[in-house]
């Protein structure tokens, strides 16, 4: 069995092996193998290509941009997604604008260990996909499965544009698969993770699994809930979402990030604008609460959506 985290490590190993332009840069990614061990052994397997950086997110990303312009394919690890706010400017104003401004592509992959885990608190739990998706010029990926973590990271490195790779820390060890995929759906396509006809739950990343658990629970009550895994939040595969809503007539979007303007709001806005007549009931969404992510597990457990609250929300939707 291979974990989500191991898949990320394996994808980086493969990228390093297959493409001499690839290198890895970030705090403690070298001999130590990274705070989460996503680069374990890579420094010794690929000498000189997996480098410890200073404690300088802005410069880490800035340097990766320069290296990409000069022909490399850097993979940058932020120690936690939350710390990317310190390198925010380089991401949204430099990497994201280069191709449009100069016609020169900027193939950097920025790995963001994202999302909440028990006890991690306000500064080690954030999900920043909406921030980056807001800006033109970035591809924002949010893999929810071991297979996607592997295949999408490889694609991220291969893509000529800057990619924000939101990998979920909760899935690192919790999620396992039998083997790595030899091929995968292309980036930018959503996937129907569970088929159903009564309602559609749209989600991504760790929340997908809460949504699937909720669907399982609802199945025991006789409801057949379809679950869509967005996989990529930018581009966002509106077609697949609309096709599902066309089948079910009901939509619930679930995200782990803050409520104002997140992925769920974008999903609802698109479905309302482009699939209004497909809806048999008002669309709903479920997000984290509008406070920082709390430290104590008691609070954290109710700050973000869970299978229980998703099932509850879905029940109201189904009974509408």
């Amino acid at each position, binding site marked *: 069995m291979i974990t989500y985290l191991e898949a990320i490590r394996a994808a980086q190993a493969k990228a390093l092996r297959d493409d001499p332009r690839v290198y890895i840069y970030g705090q403690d990614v070298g001999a130590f193998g990274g705070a989460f061990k996503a680069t374990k052994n890579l420094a010794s397997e690929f000498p000189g290509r997996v480098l410890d950086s200073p404690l300088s997110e802005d410069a880490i990303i800035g340097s990766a941009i320069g290296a990409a312009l000069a022909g490399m394919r850097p993979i940058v690890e932020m120690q936690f997604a939350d710390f990317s706010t310190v390198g925010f400017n380089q991401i949204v104003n430099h990497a994201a604008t280069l191709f449009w401004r100069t016609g020169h592509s900027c193939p950097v992959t920025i790995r963001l260990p994202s999302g909440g885990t028990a*006890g991690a608190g306000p500064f080690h739990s954030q999900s920043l996909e909406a921030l980056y998706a807001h800006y033109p010029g970035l591809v924002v990926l949010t893999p929810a499965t071991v297979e996607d973590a592997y295949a999408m990271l490889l694609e991220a490195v291969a893509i000529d544009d800057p990619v924000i790779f939101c990998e979920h820390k909760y899935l690192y060890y919790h999620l396992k698969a039998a083997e790595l995929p030899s091929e995968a759906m292309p980036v930018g396509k959503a996937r129907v993770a569970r088929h159903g006809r009564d309602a559609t739950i749209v989600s991504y990343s760790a929340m997908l699994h809460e949504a699937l658990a909720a669907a399982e629970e609802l199945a025991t009550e006789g409801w057949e809930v379809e679950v869509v895994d967005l996989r990529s939040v930018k581009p966002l595969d509106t077609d697949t979402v609309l096709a599902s809503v066309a089948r079910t007539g009901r939509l619930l979007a679930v995200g782990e990030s803050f*409520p104002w303007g997140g992925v769920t709001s974008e999903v609802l806005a698109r479905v309302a604008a482009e699939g209004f007549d497909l809806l048999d009931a008002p669309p709903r969404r479920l997000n984290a609460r509008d406070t920082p992510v709390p430290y*104590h597990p008691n609070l954290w457990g109710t700050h973000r959506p869970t299978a229980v609250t998703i099932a509850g929300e879905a029940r109201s939707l189904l009974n509408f």
Partner: protein
Amino acid sequence: MPVPLEASANPPTNAPLMDRFRTGYRWMLLARMTEEKIASLYRTGKIVGGVFLGKGQEALSTAVGMSLRKGDYLAPLIRDQAARMAFGEPLLDTLRTYMGVRSGPMRGRDGNIHRGRPSEGVLAMISHLGAMVPALAGVLMAHRFQGIQNTIGATCIGDGGTSTGAFHEGLNLAAVERLPMVVVVANNQYAYSTPNTRQFVCNDLVDKALGYGIDGHSADGTCLQSCLEVLQLAADRARSGHGPQLVVASLLRLTGHGEHDDGSYIDPLLRKTPVGRDCLKLAEEKLLANSWATPAEIALWHSETQQQIEDSVAVTLREPLPDPAHEDWCALSNRHLAEG
């Protein structure tokens, strides 16, 4: 009943070294033993989340806390259990925050080293390293605006933290405003696993002072006397209008980055060099060598401290955990402007 050490009992800064050293030693001891207890609570699953200890840095941290007076501000960082206590943060604040109980200053909302009481002069650090430097500068700007005189602020940062833009911008701003601020770099040779060689290449971090146009001081971070003297000098100079003071102390982190980390990447040879010595042991040796304390006295301090910690842990363990149903889930002080 042991009499707990109180910051208000710190000897005046012009007291004889012996008095200050004895008090300093007791703060170091309290910090060390508190953190040992926290580590054991962590190992038994009583504490969730990160635990980051200051083992090996207590001399420096204590000196920072003792260099401050009531009305001053402290912006502690990761390894400042001792500074916090010596400045007056109650032991219960530490334990309650680590346990996440409702009665703590962070009420379970934030944990461990992120605690603070801004209205009592202890800023509550955010994780993003470097960020507290400009924040503390702002506090001191406020004092200037308010005509509050003779207060200073002290903050700590690691060798790694000096590489952040926030450190640079904040220190430069403080220099331009000539603020009474002491910035203490604990050069403990590593930032997480990253050795100094991958973090900076100047000969000595204190060389940075020149480039900011501020005073620089070096301290032996393993030696309580050195730390007390250097921090006192820096605090005095800050207080008397000489602007920001950069203090760089050399020492070694004598533990993992956090309790989840065994620190196996630390070069074992470093342990054998002067920076690798245990400041607490050195301080104890000095107390005895100078006859500043008797073995019996030291033993009593140990047992009293142990008792004090056990009592506080016992209190904390009985206190109620946060209850989501009683949370107001409101991030604004203006409730009517909050959403959801």
